[in-house]
């Protein structure tokens, strides 16, 4: 990532998360304050995965020393800049890692193994040069000059790489199908429509290392015999789109894309298609419909896209992370890749860990490590310090895994055996303040809204499932409703065409399986133990703790709180909408919820 050349290099992480946490302000402040320092060089990278420490900056000294600082904001620049440049010690609270103190290791980084993310947060994603320095586009050179398409496919098969979008289909076999189809034209598509709420792996990879994904796409194109490619990316990811556009222009300029790539006979042209906000378009046939300018309705398979896909031509679709693994496999060999992971799930997997987790962020681990290692060793347990309840894997298509199954290894089969799915890698951690019925309701609200409406059981069935959940959450459910949920879930699963409907009941099925007692509490005792379901809780003032600071009074959106300054306040239950604002703003824990 660039040589120091006698400079002190300051590098700020400018991924979407970093920017949201204030990294751009930090960068601008540093730019202004270091302008006069001739021996200082300021640059940016993207996301190194440590979202919980954002904004992050790194300092590289000419002698090789290195500092990583976190939670550092614009306002801290005056305090730390001078000591940093003159190599005096700075406030320890900012220091994540210091090469002079090798014992100080951030536990988040232990147990991780970076293949897909090796350049993320290391290189400047807006420049092709650092990617090239890291060995970028060597794989495409190797493939085009020394391998036949069949050899590339064999290499993928031998690596054991499986689709990282969630389904886990072997990539080499998928490529083989598309290769076998004879047609005048074929298409190679990257599915970057990361619609799973709670997942951000693809966004981070595209923002941090866009060239790697492009290189993977070109290799795939060569293997299946496609000369045209698309990256279908969500419109909600403007920074990823911007960086991809820059990367495509740079790769075209250097002839890694375009006609007769690197003076060979192989040509490949790549376009970006922006999605328009439809979760179902993550399903490959719906994605194809969307590129064709249609409503994103899935199509019946067979014919599979490998036979008849985009504009009826053979088409291969791979997920971002799958493609980002490809250059590494070509460069290092399938055997090296297959040496990581388990018997059936090879290599590494990227997870985005969020929710009530102490150290949320982007994590890449060898397949097969226990969930517990990700949540406790890497993630540091719950953010609240309260007991862990469940981790939700695979988003709306996935399920909740309870504490007693945390020793489940992360591989496709073991995760599926719990009833959840590996999915694309979203992991949302929940503690005891999360209501399991509310979580199921949340996902059904989502899938019901996102159902394209083509299949009756998905369109109407998800609506009915949601209504039952709403009934239970309102304390109006019966035990028959629980049976109805299970029964209807099975039907929606069986009678939907695409993955959206087939998996939509998963959050219900797994939560009933592991947290049946919580459902029964809502039904029989009219009680929500997490104090989330509004119809089952009340807010009241704990008189002995109320200082009469008036903050709840000022913040109540419906003026349900009365009381004079410095006197105990009171909540009018008839007016209260149970929004929880008073509970949130009270600095004295004087609001009771339950």
């Amino acid at each position, binding site marked *: 990532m660039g040589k120091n050349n006698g400079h002190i290099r300051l590098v700020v992480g400018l991924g979407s998360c970093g920017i949201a946490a204030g990294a751009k302000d930090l960068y601008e402040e540093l730019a202004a304050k270091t302008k006069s320092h001739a021996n200082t060089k300021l640059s940016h990278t993207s996301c190194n995965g440590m979202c919980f420490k954002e904004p992050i900056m790194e300092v590289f000294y000419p002698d090789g020393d290195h500092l990583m600082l976190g939670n550092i904001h614009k306002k801290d620049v005056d305090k730390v800049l001078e000591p940093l440049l003159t190599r005096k010690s700075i406030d320890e609270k900012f220091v994540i890692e210091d090469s002079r103190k090798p014992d100080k290791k951030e536990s988040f980084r232990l147990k991780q193994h970076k293949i897909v993310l090796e350049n993320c947060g290391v290189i400047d994603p807006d420049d092709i040069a650092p990617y090239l320095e890291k060995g970028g586009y060597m794989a495409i050179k190797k493939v085009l000059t020394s391998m036949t398409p069949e050899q590339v496919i064999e290499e993928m098969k031998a690596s054991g790489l499986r689709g990282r979008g969630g389904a886990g289909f072997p990539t080499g076999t998928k490529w083989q199908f598309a290769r076998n189809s004879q047609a005048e034209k074929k298409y190679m598509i990257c599915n970057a429509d990361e*619609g799973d709420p709670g997942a951000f792996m693809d*966004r981070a990879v595209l923002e941090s290392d866009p060239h790697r994904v492009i290189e993977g796409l070109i290799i795939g194109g060569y293997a299946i015999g496609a000369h045209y490619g698309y990256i279908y990316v969500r419109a909600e990811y403007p920074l990823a789109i911007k960086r991809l556009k820059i990367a495509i222009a740079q790769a075209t300029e250097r002839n890694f894309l375009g006609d007769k790539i690197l003076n060979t006979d192989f040509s490949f042209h790549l376009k970006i298609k*922006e999605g*328009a906000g439809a979760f179902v378009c993550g399903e490959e046939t719906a994605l194809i419909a969307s590129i*064709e*300018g249609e409503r994103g309705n899935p199509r019946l398979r067979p014919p599979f896209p490998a036979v008849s896909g985009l504009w009826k031509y053979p088409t291969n679709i791979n997920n971002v992370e799958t493609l980002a693994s490809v250059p590494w496999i070509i460069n290092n060999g399938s055997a090296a890749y297959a040496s990581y992971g388990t018997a059936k799930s090879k290599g590494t997997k990227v997870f985005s860990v*969020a929710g009530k987790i102490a150290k949320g962020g982007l994590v890449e681990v060898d397949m097969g490590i226990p969930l517990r290692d990700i949540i406790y060793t890497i993630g540091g347990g719950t953010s609240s310090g309260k007991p862990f309840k469940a981790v939700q894997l695979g*988003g709306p298509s996935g399920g909740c895994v309870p504490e007693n199954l945390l020793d489940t290894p992360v591989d496709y089969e073991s995760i599926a055996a719990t009833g959840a799915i590996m999915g694309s890698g979203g992991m949302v951690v929940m503690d005891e303040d999360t209501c399991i019925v509310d979580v199921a309701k949340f996902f059904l609200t989502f899938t019901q809204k996102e159902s394209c409406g083509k299949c009756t059981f998905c369109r109407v069935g998800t609506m009915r499932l949601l209504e039952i959940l709403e009934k239970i959450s309102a304390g109006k459910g019966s035990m028959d409703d629980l049976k109805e949920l299970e029964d209807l879930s099975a039907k929606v699963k069986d009678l939907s065409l695409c993955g959206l409907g087939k998996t939509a009941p998963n959050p219900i099925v797994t939560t009933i399986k592991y947290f049946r007692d919580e459902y029964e509490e809502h039904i029989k005792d009219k009680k929500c133990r997490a104090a989330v379901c509004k119809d089952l809780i009340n807010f009241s003032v704990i008189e002995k703790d109320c200082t009469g600071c008036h903050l709840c009074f000022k913040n109540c959106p419906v003026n349900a709180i009365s009381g004079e300054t410095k006197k105990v306040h009171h909540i009018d239950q008839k007016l209260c909408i149970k929004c929880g604002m008073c509970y949130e703003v009270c600095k004295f824990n004087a609001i009771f919820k339950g």
Partner: protein
Amino acid sequence: MSQSNVQKYLKNYGSTKEAAIPILQAIQNDYGYLPLDVLSKVCEESEITKSHLFGVATFYSQFKLTPKGKNAIKVCKGTACHVKGADITIVALKDQLSINMDQTTEDGEFSMETVACLGCCSLAPVVMINEDVYGSLSSSKVRSMLKKYGKE
């Protein structure tokens, strides 16, 4: 409505069905929403039928048929935001702006909608105003965030 805009869309993206989504995105980019007269004009000048264009416009949640505020607020309702209290953010926004979801303030300054996931899950709860993302929100942060956009 400018005739030249319609010509620009067709020139940039083509006049076949395939161009429907990019054209709608360009219109929304220029006008902030999809004015019906512009849509009609596109259909008159291209091969795209009205039923197709309207069908696409109403399928994808990105497209709006009514004008948005000068500052478009997108409240993330992803899983992480949900468990970390997106609802409180919504209450605070509704209270501050006196509008509901999918509405625009009377002065046209702010509009508000929920979106599935902005992908900044570790900073939940998250809100996006125009192109800027704000994370780890609380009710007091909502107030200071809105101030940046001229909300007293």
